[in-house]
Structures are given as C-alpha cells and as structure tokens.
C-alpha cells in the first residue's frame, strides 16, 4: 500500500480519538466533579531505508539511509485535576473539596459470575474508588430501615477514616466541618460524633484511571502509595491547603474556550490529514492510469 496512505490512516485514527476526548469534555461542561481529560501525540516508529555506500558524498549532512516516519498516534491520556468552581447549593450533604484531594467510596466487588464477591463471613467485599463529586445523600440500610448511610447518588457508600460505612442517626441535623468531621445533632440538641470522612491526597495524578461517573481507580499494577496518600489529620490538611466545604458542589473544570480552541485545532489537523489522504489517492489513480 501507498506509504502516504498508511501514515494518513494511522494519524486520522489518533486525531479521531483526540476529537472524542474533546467531545467528552464539552459534554461534561455541567457535570459536578468532572475533571477534564487531555491527551498528547507522539510520532510512530521511524524506519530507515538502507542506501548503498555510493550515496555517501561530500556535502551530505546525514548518516546513510533514508528515514521514513509512519504518522502519529495518541500516546497518553490523563485527567487534569485542577480545581473546579465551588457553587453553593445549601444542601447539607453536598460537599466540595478545596485543594488536591479526593473522597473515598467503597464499591462492591463483582465476580466473574456477575454476583457480588463475598468474604469467608458472607459479607460483601468492597474496592475503593475516589471522586471529587461530593453530591452525597442518605440511603436507608435495606436490612434496617432505621439506619441511614451516607452514600453517593447511586448508593455507593462513602467511607470514613477507618474505611467503614458512615451511619447517620435518622432525623438528625448534620454538620460537616472543613476537616471532614461529621457531627449529628438530634432533636434533643444532643451532639453525636459520627466520624470523619476519609480524604486522600493526590500524589501523582497521572497514575489514576478514570472509571466513569467522575470516579477514579488505580490500575492493578499501581501501588496505592505511589498515587495517593491518606490524609493523616486536620493538621496535615491545613498544611496542604485541603478543606471540605459543606453546602457546596464543585463544578466541572472544563473551560469551554480552551476546548473550542482545541476542537478547531484538532478538526483542522483532521481536515489536513484527509487532504493528504485524498492527495495520495489521486497519486494512486494517476499510477493506475499510466496506460490510458
């Protein structure tokens, strides 16, 4: 096949994926806790076509051999964890994080048979995922309707410092301070310390994998401490400039102006590349028509 065509085809594929990423960002312009995605390009392996020794002439600048590139590909994709704007909602279970940290949620592990995996005591096994989407709510425990747990919108449990589910007494008024400490006030005015939200600091954002619903997980081969570090306590949070804001939600950090600029850029590159492809096609046609 024509060399230009291979180059154009592989590069169009990469550009298409870049366009998909931009479309994803634009679609999530209003998604709470969404972190914009970005990607970079890299040129594909270069091959060297051997040349005879007789091509080594005075005035030649490069070593013998003709280098041939084969286009570009998308080399890496990552999430940009810059801060989104907090917006006041006044809801007691809407939480926003200021600074470089994530909430931890516990997702039931699903086995190969599609059923939740149970440990030896018959309790479900949970895997951690992390999110900046603090739109939480109270969900009743199916076993005991009187007990309410702090969960994400889809019922995933939010965990406390010790990795346990957070139970909130029914009918209480809940106060969550900047360090993530949850206090419930009953009707009688009695304060109950419910626990403290587990917050993890992001050590290396490139190691986090987006798993949908504004959540992030770690790939199997990534050790936890290389990507995330559980925050020890209020003092460390203050040092790192991390705080929890009750009654606020963090908006998406997508900047529409930047996305549109990127879109124009990627689309024009796509157009140029298809132009090169049709040019290569014309060349092939010319070769086919050599004989009338």
């Amino acid at each position: 096949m024509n060399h230009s065509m291979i180059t154009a085809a592989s590069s169009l594929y990469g550009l298409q994926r870049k366009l998909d990423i931009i479309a994803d960002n634009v679609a999530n312009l209003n998604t709470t806790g969404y972190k914009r995605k970005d990607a970079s390009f890299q040129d594909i392996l270069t091959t060297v076509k051997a040349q005879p020794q007789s091509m080594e002439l005075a005035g030649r600048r490069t070593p013998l051999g003709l280098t041939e590139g084969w286009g570009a590909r998308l080399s890496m994709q990552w999430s940009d964890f810059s801060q989104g704007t907090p917006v006041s909602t006044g809801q007691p279970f809407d939480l926003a994080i200021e600074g470089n940290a994530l909430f931890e949620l516990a997702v039931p592990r699903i086995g190969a048979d599609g059923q939740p995996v149970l440990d030896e005591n018959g309790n479900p096994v949970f895997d951690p995922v992390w999110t900046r989407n603090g739109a939480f709510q109270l969900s009743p425990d199916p076993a005991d309707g009187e007990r309410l747990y702090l969960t994400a919108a889809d019922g995933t449990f939010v965990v406390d410092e010790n990795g346990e589910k957070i139970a909130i007494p029914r009918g209480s008024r809940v106060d969550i301070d900047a360090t993530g400490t949850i206090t419930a006030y009953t009707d009688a005015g009695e304060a109950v310390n419910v626990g403290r939200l587990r917050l993890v600091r992001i050590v290396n954002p490139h190691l986090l994998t987006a798993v949908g619903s504004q959540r992030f997980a770690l790939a199997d081969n990534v050790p936890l401490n290389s990507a995330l570090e559980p925050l020890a306590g209020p003092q460390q949070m203050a040092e790192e400039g991390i705080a929890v804001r009750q009654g606020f939600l963090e908006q998406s950090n997508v900047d529409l102006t930047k996305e549109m600029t990127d879109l124009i850029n990627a689309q024009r590159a796509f157009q140029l590349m298809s132009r090169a492809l049709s040019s290569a096609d014309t060349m092939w046609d010319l070769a086919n028509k050599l004989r009338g």
Partner: protein
Amino acid sequence: MLRGMYTAAAGMIAHQRRHDLITNNIANLNTPGYKAQVGVMRSFPEMLINLVNEGADRPSRTIGTLNTGTMVEEVLPIWTQGPLQETANASDLALISNIRVFEEVDGVPVEIRFDASGRGVNQAGETVYQPQAFYTVWNEAGEVRYTRNSQMVVDAEGLLRTTDGHRVLGQDGQPIALGRSLDSVRVTPAGVLLDGQGEVLGSLLITRIDNPYALIREGAGVYRLEGNEAAAAAADPDDFEIRQGFVERSNVDPAQAVTDLMVALRAYEANQRIVQYYDKSLEKAVNEVGRV
C-alpha cells in the same frame, strides 16, 4: 528503449517519496517536540553520450552530458525551535536550545553566525552546524537516547519518564527518581529540580549535540547517535533554558506543508503525463510507422 520514460518514472518515485515525507509532517502537526523533515532531491549521475559507428574513417564524437532521472538523496530534519505553548501543566518542560559557537581569531572570540537552518561558515571557510540541546533518556534496554519531547510523567516507581516511557536521566547519568508528581516540583531554567522548600531533588542531564544532523531518528521523538559518542557532551547552562508549564510544539508549518503536498502531487502528475507521451510515441512507432 526511450530513455526519457525511465527518467519520468524515476521522477514519479522521487515525488511519491516527498509526498510521503510531507504526509508524515502533517501527521505530526500536534506532536510536541517534533522536527519537520524535508527530502533533498538529486539528479542521477551524469552520463556522457557518445556517437559511435558513424563511419569507418571517422572517430566517435561526443554529443554531451545527460542525466537520467532524479531521486530523494537524503532526508534532512529541520532543527528550528518549535513554538512554545503555555499549558500551565507542571509536567510540561519545554527545552529551548540556543547554543552560540565562538572561535578564537587572534586571541579574540568571534561568534559564528548561523542561518535559519542552523548552518554557518567558520573562519577557515568550513561549513559548521549549530549544536542543539536535548534531554538525555534511556530506552527500555538502558541505551542512551536523546529527545526534545517536553511532556513528562512520573511512573508508579517514582521514576521520571517521557510520555512514551523513556526514563529521563539526571546529571549523574542515572534515571531521575522523584517519587512524587511534578506538580509539587519546581524546575529551574537550568534544569534543577526543587521541592517546595527549595531542596534539590535532582538535575536534568541536557546533552549538547555538536552536529545534530548526525543523529538518527528512531521515532517516538527520540534520536540516537551512532559510533560517535564523543560528539555528545553535557550542555552548559547558558546553552539552553527549560520552561516549566510550556510545551515545545511541532515546528511543522501547515501552510507550507499543504503547498508542498500540492507541488509533490502535481510534479508526480507531470511525470506521469510524460510517461504517457512516451507511450504514445512508442505506440506510433510500433503500430503506424511500420504499417504497410
């Protein structure tokens, strides 16, 4: 057979090769640190045409010289600096290479002036090329390679890598182990990595390549130097500048590339036409001249 037919065919092949190169340049319009490549064309070696067997009493007579085609002789990288783009991403480290060369004339240093392609002439009248600065990296096998890729990440083991996995080397010739993301590291223009308290974490090894045309392109933004390791030396901090939060974009000029693409296509077409005309001449010779 008619010589010109082969000449035109050689022209078609050469322009096809140029088209391939331009397509690859367009494909890498968005590849950070990519350097455009141009094909240098050269005519086939000259032949001396003699008229022989004119008659027994007359010696053979020289008619003149003839070239029988053209080819792409070498592929030259364009070493101009790519434009810098601000990304505000702490792991983008653009490398600006601006190496000035001086020579001693009667004990006074005189600067060699380079043109836009990086070529200059020294006092002795010899052609010299402007040296270029590169990041020094290791590939998977631990062999030294050079790159201008300005996007870096820290992997799960805490090692600093380029976006396609080449380990970035420090001044000690070993991969830099940071153990934290570049978001919390400040990089000085001289390539020193500092943490928040100003403690030195390491220093990037920037290599100066005296004749960058001697580098062999491997793809994925890396180059190697073959046989001539002495031509590479650690660069002086005055020779380069590292800008954190910027990427060096590809130095491909899209307008120029599209124009070149059209020229290559039309030149290919012109050569194709010539082949067709020769074919018509042959047709006449075969079918009409000899008709009885």
